[in-house]
């Protein structure tokens, strides 16, 4: 009886460890960022696009208003695809669209907006990409819906018809 204790104990431990690793194997190993987290918006200072004025984020976002922060660049092809949806959202009365121009040349960004028209109430310049990091962004395009100084929705990649409907539903 005594000699059976050790093997039983070892087998039990082995089964527990096997079960944990087997369960772990079933977890997806592709990183999926959380897009529905309520996080405070970051505090930052940056240049206003095409000017030398420095603006603090506290001056931009007011309470009780929806803001759509869109990170874009003229060199980014998906930004071109989502522009039509931004123009649709531009018509929404209770929403202000703030652009963050990411690692771009001013002239190229200006011709991009001249060609496709400008949906942004204010454009901030992010020459080194650190403002995008402050927002927890991965690249361009990326969009954040902000309400009461909190990020209520994050869209990674270009805005499409589904995300447009989702935004419209959220700001109703």
């Amino acid at each position, binding site marked *: 009886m005594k000699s059976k204790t050790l093997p039983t104990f070892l087998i039990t431990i082995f089964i527990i*460890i096997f079960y944990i690793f087997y369960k772990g194997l079933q977890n997806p190993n592709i*990183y999926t*960022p959380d897009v529905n987290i309520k996080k405070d918006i970051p505090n930052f200072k940056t240049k206003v696009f095409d000017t030398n004025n420095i603006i603090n984020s506290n001056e931009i976002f007011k309470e009780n208003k929806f803001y759509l922060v869109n990170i874009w660049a003229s060199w980014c092809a998906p930004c071109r695809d989502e522009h039509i949806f931004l123009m649709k959202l531009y018509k929404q009365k209770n929403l202000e669209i703030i652009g963050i121009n990411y690692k771009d040349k001013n002239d190229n960004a200006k011709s991009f907006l001249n060609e496709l028209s400008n949906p942004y109430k204010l454009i901030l310049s992010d020459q080194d*990409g*650190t403002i995008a*990091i402050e927002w927890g962004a991965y*690249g361009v395009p990326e969009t954040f819906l902000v309400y009461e100084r909190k990020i209520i929705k994050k869209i990674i990649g270009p805005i499409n018809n589904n995300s447009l409907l989702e935004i419209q539903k959220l700001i109703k």
Partner: protein
Amino acid sequence: MKLFKYLLAIFFVLNLNSLNAQEDSLQSKITKNLRCLICQGQSVYDSDSEFADSIKILVKKKISEGESEKQIYGYLKDKYGEWILYEPQFGKKTYFLWLLPILMFVLGGAIILKIFYLKKN
């Protein structure tokens, strides 16, 4: 006096260089422990992607502002979650990961001792 001034200038320049080297090595150490979230199996240090470049600039800025390694990890963890760190910190989700090797070591030792003791008797 002139010689003293020259020596002081040389000392100052060398000191500045060593300070820069220290900052650079800390930046490398931190960026080596950060996962490039948009790359396949690369650290921020190894990657040249736009994302990694921005993180490198940010880490450099934070070091020059006097932030510690722990503060920088904490900041990035808050923005991107635990996944950005190659070395996960001890917490609710990771306690098993950290404690399992110790547990295995203790159990293994106990088993070896027990077998040794049984054989002796």
